[in-house]
């Protein structure tokens, strides 16, 4: 039940962030919720910053392109560009912190909710692929740093290494599919481990309810009474 509530909350948070223009109140409440969850999950600030480096660079590039295209068409919408940048950062962090909050049980709960076996299998393959790639990323980095030595003109070796890496990834997907063909013959059940609710869970749920009341409800009412 708790896992279900966590997963649903995450969908609501992402939905609000994407659909509504982020106001200062929305951003503040979501930031507080993320902070509470980060404390519950014991995510260190350094770790949090590291994970955000890539998405910050992406957001800067994305916003720069929006500015350039605005300049070219003589119509720069600063508010929209800033709003989109905030949305990207918020959604990334909700997914990052939220996936840790919901955890493996959250993934299993989502699998259970999927209506067709083929959809379940697709998500399983995707999950396995991403997980095994993350697990091996350290080894891949060591291999690349040991070979990527341009001073000794080993750039070529690194290039072929990347090609081989991609082939190996494709081969691992092929083996994973073979395993599914040989092992899975009918729809399957999933067992989620029971979890205990923590105070931080309660605070996060209350904050989200508050967000629904002060941000979403007025928007809905405004839509109903133009």
């Amino acid at each position, binding site marked *: 039940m708790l896992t279900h509530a966590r997963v649903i909350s995450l969908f609501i948070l992402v939905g609000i962030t994407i659909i509504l223009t982020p106001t200062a109140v929305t951003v503040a409440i979501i930031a507080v919720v993320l902070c509470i969850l980060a404390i519950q999950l014991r995510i260190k600030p350094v770790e949090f910053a590291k994970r955000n480096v890539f998405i910050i660079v992406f957001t800067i590039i994305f916003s720069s392109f929006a500015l350039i295209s605005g300049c070219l068409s003589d119509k720069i919408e600063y508010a929209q560009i800033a709003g989109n940048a905030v949305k990207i950062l918020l959604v990334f962090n909700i997914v990052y912190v939220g996936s840790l909050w919901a955890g493996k049980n959250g993934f299993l709960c989502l699998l259970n909710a999927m209506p067709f076996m083929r959809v379940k299998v697709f998500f*399983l393959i995707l999950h396995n692929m991403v997980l*095994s790639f993350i697990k091996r990323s350290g080894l891949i980095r060591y291999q690349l740093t040991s070979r990527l030595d341009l001073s000794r003109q080993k750039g070529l070796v690194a290039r072929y290494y990347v090609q081989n890496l991609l082939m190996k990834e494709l081969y691992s997907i092929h*083996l994973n599919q073979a*395993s599914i*063909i040989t*092992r899975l013959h*009918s729809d399957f*059940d999933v*067992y989620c481990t029971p979890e205990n609710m923590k105070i931080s869970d309660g605070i996060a749920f209350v904050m989200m309810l508050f967000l629904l009341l002060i941000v979403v409800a007025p928007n809905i009412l405004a839509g109903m009474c133009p």
Partner: protein
Amino acid sequence: MKSLVIKNLNYRYPDGTDALREAALAIERGSRLALLGGNGSGKTTLLLHIAGLLDGDGFIEVMGVERSKKTIEEIRRRVGLLFSQVEYQFIMPDLLNDIMLSLSPFPLSVEEKREQALQWLRRFNLEQYQYKSPLDLSSGEMKRAALAAIVSRGPDILLLDEPLNNLDKRNSMIIIDLLRSFESSMIIATHRRIIVEELATHIAVMEDGRITGMYENNEKPLSSFETLLF
């Protein structure tokens, strides 16, 4: 009764390599066949055909069921394949759910499946890892976990591709002892002497995609397979 009959099986990979040439094999129910052969002799390709993952020309009959497009699903249900790279064999994010997935064909409730899965984990001495990702286990534990997931389905034939890959002697013996406790027929593609000495009832030798010899264990001295075993 024969649990497996293969006749005139041919297979060519898309790159033009002839992997199987008129391969023929028959094994009795309950026998444990060690399939020996050099690298690239066609052992894994043969196992993939029996498991219904490759579709070459020829005759394959598993437990009296002849392979065809209509029967391929039934054959896949009757056969369990342990990959040489077991890390790709796991489907679910934790061990308990992975074993439960193997139990999915049985008409049981989630709680009953969980109980049975726990029994299998206990038997393989893996109960303490039930909520762990299989990828976080050591090589020996991962091999045991993969084997538990295969045998829990109750296959009639077990196909084991290098089951002792990356294992030390202690873990090898644990796997061999577990395998001895099952009554299923087994085909074990291997280069390890310990499998022939401790587990196999029969030996078949493959060369260039053909079965060139089939013997009862002890029919020939192990020294005659010296180049194929270590």
